[in-house]
């Protein structure tokens, strides 16, 4: 057994780690020795140089810093001995340094090795490029490698390396890999005799096909016929590519993945052949195993699962879908945990196909059993996912009940997600809303700590919007509150619902107004400040609903513990409510405190939260799109599907501001529509007003136009740092919030706001951050960015938090600008001016003449144009003092070619900037952005 081979203990290995100090001492001695050898007068021979570079690498890999030896490693590259060259390349790959001088030398050595016609040296050079994959290397070799790849006399092993090397360069710098004649020859590598070449080429073709499906369409029929030859071969046919009796499993998986880049083949012959392959793979799963070894079954099932993925991807052959489902059903009870896990996972996607949904449902008992018995939490998690995916009106009561009972013992790590799922299912499939209310109250009872604000806001929204359930809800919360210890979230829901609908049960002497009030107030002292604030609002609502308890409530409001409460918010509420109850007439009270109007219906905030938690791709919207189109809980039209913009929590205050994305709803009840000025002040505890932009924000914003990292905002309390990267139409921004004080920030809520105009053009996705930021701590938030179409405005980042007793509110513009989606384009002078002329329509050109704000330095200007994102084209403009650039703005919908020309006038200290693009708004915006840089 292989396992044993690693088991032999080695004394010397133990010694190495024996004492940290001893190790460091020995290593420092060794480093000093090597340094002296490198610096010595005597030139080292190749062997010694290799020996010492190798030692340095060893020391580095033990975890120590190395700051010398790079030059010696580069020298080794030009050796003619394999071992010396290999150590040199390894050092470069592991300790790559972007020192520009060395890069030039390294590239030179690589160039020589690529031209050497020595397959070993070519291999080393290609592996080095594939490991480093830097832009400089792409610039130097992206044109050369396709030639190596398709040349007739290239050795097979070199072809394998060249294919994957090119793939790496295409991933890092797609703009630098020129498409051309070679692409069609690469596709034909799928026919190559050498299966290793096919294996490498398939990866390359798959990646290229994802980006250029049209150009690589011919790969479909070639991949199908290759796959067909593999799956029908006898287990010995492929010799060394047969792994534990399975013919070429990895290549089969890759070919099946390549086919997932395309819809089902149109050509009936190809399609028929593919269906045959898939059937053969499914048939083989039923045959008795050729070996008992797990390697055999793993390799066989790797192919099977990939085939099932393709079947699901095509979603067009009901017969195959149902067979796949039955096969997975067998795996659900397999003794291998891996297979049970993968079957649950794969079935989850099958559940969303209309052809196999019913077949998946037949496995409900097995899945519920998995939830109860699996030892690995990740398997139970998959079971929860699958139950969620297979849920429909017919089995919702059973699934919700099972999830609730699992919740009692569920792992902490997945409780919140289960709570969200139960809440969504309960809402979605509620026929009887009493069931819905019971379910949510159960949720709070069982897992109150994991019931997020979204969930209890939602139950309140639904109760308010449906008058048939209001009386039942009031009765149920009243009963639930009888428990001696109930979760604070229940107090919130109870307080809110009784404040609105307590009158519906007040006729029963067992729940008279005074009893309701006493019940709520008995919980008051155990609750946190936001809940107390909410209860105070309930009390003032009681004053309106039940005049008979007004004196009792006034006494409470008047007590020192309220009127002189140390918390400003509570004190203010007590003072204002008391005053309101004293001075306002019954009519005014009734108007100010009238019942909440129905909430406007939008996407469920809970669903939005689940999507945020799991990423949009993992929450299937099939239910919304296919089966459940007619379902709507609240009697209003269903919201538009899945707006992916950030923070779309439907707080009722959002629309008041006319902002597309809203901050989370405040902790207290939302302002009543008839509220008037007084109450608005009371309720605007937090989050309903966005601060104007912070001073200096514009300047900071401009500094980020040509760079991606730095400090965006800083005041005495808070520092906001940014780190971002963009590729094509996608980007990712890390926002770092640093608490500069030694005191906690509470209710820390950053919100991204896109105006109505911006929202359709720019998608921002993020997750909420922890609401508490400790003194001196830094929290990080990741924003995923997608540019859908060109845009002008920038999103606003609003941050609200409590510091000490004060409420802080800061807004800054987030520097996500159109030029971030630039990809530079190199072109020759002739091409440039030809395109320039093509864009001569007056709407396509925007020009700006402006005074220089900064010293006119050629190098700085060049750096800014490159930082802006366009290529800087040398020797294009006849006047060498001018700067010329070109690039493509990538958006999801289109790509826009952009040309620019900057003409400095040193005497006048002026610039003239001209932008030409095919779209006026783009020319305009880019010109604005770039003009502000000089």
């Amino acid at each position, binding site marked *: 057994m292989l396992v044993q081979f690693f088991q032999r203990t080695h004394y*010397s290995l133990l010694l190495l780690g024996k004492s940290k100090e001893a190790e460091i001492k020995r290593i420092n001695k060794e480093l000093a020795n090597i340094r002296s050898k490198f610096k010595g007068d005597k030139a080292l021979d190749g062997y010694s140089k290799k020996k010492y570079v190798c030692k340095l690498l060893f020391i580095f890999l033990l975890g120590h810093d190395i700051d010398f030896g790079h030059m010696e490693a580069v020298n080794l590259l030009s050796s003619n001995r*394999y071992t010396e060259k290999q150590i040199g390349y390894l050092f470069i790959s592991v300790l790559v340094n972007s020192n520009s001088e060395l890069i030039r030398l390294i590239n030179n050595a690589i160039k020589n090795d690529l031209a050497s016609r020595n397959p070993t040296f070519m291999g080393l050079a290609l592996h080095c490029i594939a490991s480093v994959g830097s832009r400089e290397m792409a610039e130097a070799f992206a044109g050369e490698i396709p030639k190596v790849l398709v040349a007739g006399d290239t050795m097979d092993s070199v072809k394998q390396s060249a294919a994957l090397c090119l793939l790496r360069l295409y991933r890092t710098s797609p703009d630098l890999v020129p498409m051309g004649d070679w692409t069609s020859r690469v596709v034909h590598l799928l026919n190559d005799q050498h299966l290793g070449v096919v294996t*490498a080429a398939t990866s390359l073709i798959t990646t290229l096909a994802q980006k250029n499906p049209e150009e690589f369409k011919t790969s479909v029929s070639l991949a199908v016929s290759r796959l067909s030859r593999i799956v029908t071969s006898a287990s010995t046919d492929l010799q060394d590519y047969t792994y534990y009796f399975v013919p070429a499993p990895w290549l089969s998986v890759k070919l099946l993945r390549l086919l997932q880049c395309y819809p089902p083949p149109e050509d009936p012959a190809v399609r028929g052949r593919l269906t045959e392959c898939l059937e053969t793979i499914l048939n083989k799963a039923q045959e008795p195993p050729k070996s008992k070894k797990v390697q055999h079954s793993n390799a066989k099932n790797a192919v099977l699962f990939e085939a099932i993925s393709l079947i699901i991807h095509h979603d067009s052959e009901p017969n195959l879908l149902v067979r796949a489902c039955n096969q997975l059903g067998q795996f659900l009870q397999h003794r291998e945990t891996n297979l049970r896990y993968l079957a649950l996972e794969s079935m989850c996607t099958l559940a969303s196909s209309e052809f196999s949904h019913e077949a998946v449902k037949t496995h409900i008992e097995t899945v519920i059993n998995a939830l109860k018995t699996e030892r690995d939490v990740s*398997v139970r998690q998959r079971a929860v996912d699958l139950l969620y995916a297979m849920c429909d009106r017919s089995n919702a009561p059973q699934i919700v009940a099972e999830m609730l009972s699992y919740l009692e013992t569920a792992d902490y790590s997945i409780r919140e997600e289960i709570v969200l799922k139960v809440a969504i299912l309960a809402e979605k499939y509620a026929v009887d809303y009493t069931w819905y209310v019971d379910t949510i109250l159960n949720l709070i009872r069982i897992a109150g700590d994991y019931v997020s604000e979204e969930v209890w806001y939602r139950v309140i929204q639904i109760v308010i919007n449906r008058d048939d359930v209001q009386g039942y809800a009031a009765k149920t919360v009243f009963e639930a509150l009888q428990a001696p210890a109930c979760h604070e979230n229940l107090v919130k829901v109870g307080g809110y619902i009784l404040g609105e609908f307590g009158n519906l049960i007040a006729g029963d002497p067992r729940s008279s107004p005074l009893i309701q009030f006493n019940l709520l107030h008995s919980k008051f002292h155990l609750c946190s400040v936001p809940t107390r604030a909410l209860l105070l609002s309930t009390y003032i609502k009681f004053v309106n609903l039940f005049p008979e308890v007004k004196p009792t409530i006034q006494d409470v409001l008047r007590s020192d513990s309220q009127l002189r409460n140390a918390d400003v918010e509570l004190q203010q509420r007590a003072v204002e409510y008391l005053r309101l109850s004293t001075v306002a007439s019954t009519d005014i009270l009734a108007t100010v405190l009238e019942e909440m109007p129905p909430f406007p219906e939008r996407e469920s905030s809970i669903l939005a939260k689940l999507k945020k938690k799991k990423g949009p791709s993992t929450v299937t919207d099939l239910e919304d799109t296919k089966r459940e189109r007619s379902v709507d809980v609240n009697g209003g039209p269903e919201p538009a599907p899945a707006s992916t913009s950030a923070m779309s929590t439907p707080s009722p205050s959002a629309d008041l501001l006319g902002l597309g994305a809203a901050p989370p709803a405040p902790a207290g009840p939302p302002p009543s529509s008839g509220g008037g000025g007084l109450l608005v002040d009371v309720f605007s505890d937090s989050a309903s007003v966005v601060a104007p932009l912070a001073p200096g924000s514009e300047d900071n914003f401009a500094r980020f136009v040509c760079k991606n990292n730095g400090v965006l905002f800083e005041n005495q309390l808070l520092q906001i740092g940014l780190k971002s990267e963009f590729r094509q139409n996608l980007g990712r921004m890390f926002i770092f919030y640093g608490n500069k004080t030694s005191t906690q920030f509470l209710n820390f809520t950053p919100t991204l706001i896109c105006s109505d105009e911006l929202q359709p053009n720019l998608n921002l996705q993020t997750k909420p951050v922890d609401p508490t930021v400790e003194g001196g701590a830094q929290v990080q938030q990741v924003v995923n960015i997608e540019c859908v179409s060109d845009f002008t405005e920038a999103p606003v980042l609003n941050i609200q938090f409590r510091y000490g007793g004060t409420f802080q509110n800061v807004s800054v513009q987030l520097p996500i600008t159109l030029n971030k989606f630039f990809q530079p384009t190199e072109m020759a002078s002739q091409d440039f001016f030809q395109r320039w002329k093509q864009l001569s329509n007056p709407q396509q050109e925007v020009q700006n003449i402006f005074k220089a704000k900064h010293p006119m330095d050629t190098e700085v200007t060049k750096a800014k144009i490159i930082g802006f994102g366009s290529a800087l084209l040398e020797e294009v403009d006849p006047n060498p003092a001018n700067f010329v650039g070109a690039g493509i703005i990538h958006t999801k919908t289109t790509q826009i070619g952009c040309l620019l020309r900057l003409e400095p006038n040193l005497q006048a200290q002026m610039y003239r900037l001209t932008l030409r693009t095919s779209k006026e708004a783009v020319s305009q915006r880019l010109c604005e952005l770039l003009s502000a840089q000089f």
Partner: protein
Amino acid sequence: MEHIRFILIQNRAGKTRLAKWYMQFDDDEKQKLIEEVHAVVTVRDAKHTNFVEVISVADSLSVLQFRNFKIIYRRYAGLYFCICVDVNDNNLAYLEAIHNFVEVLNEYFHNVCELDLVFNFYKVYTVVDEMFLAGEIRETSQTKVLKQLLMLQSLE
């Protein structure tokens, strides 16, 4: 664009015996990932799957949270062989790729042990590059890989 993000070999104490990165990470990120992988992998036993999704793991993996990733791992005595791939990648194919790799190491070093990986690290990198390149599976035939390795050894 699915591909391997990194390959890690660690021992039970968390010492790295091989790290091959197929994506740009800075040194701090690498260190965090190494620690994180060790923390999530070593607590699992034979009843667990060989797959760990890193979605729910602490912030330090946030460099990877742009999209979700998973670790496919296999334990051989005191060593954990881990491959980090995209959540959509084929689990079993990578699980067996690990085993295929281990069998090659075993053949090449004649009953491989942890010490071979430490002191012959430069050979291990060569084996890795023969079998995985640019984050993709390059060659799966043990015969072909070993033949090439012996040829290279003869040049030493």
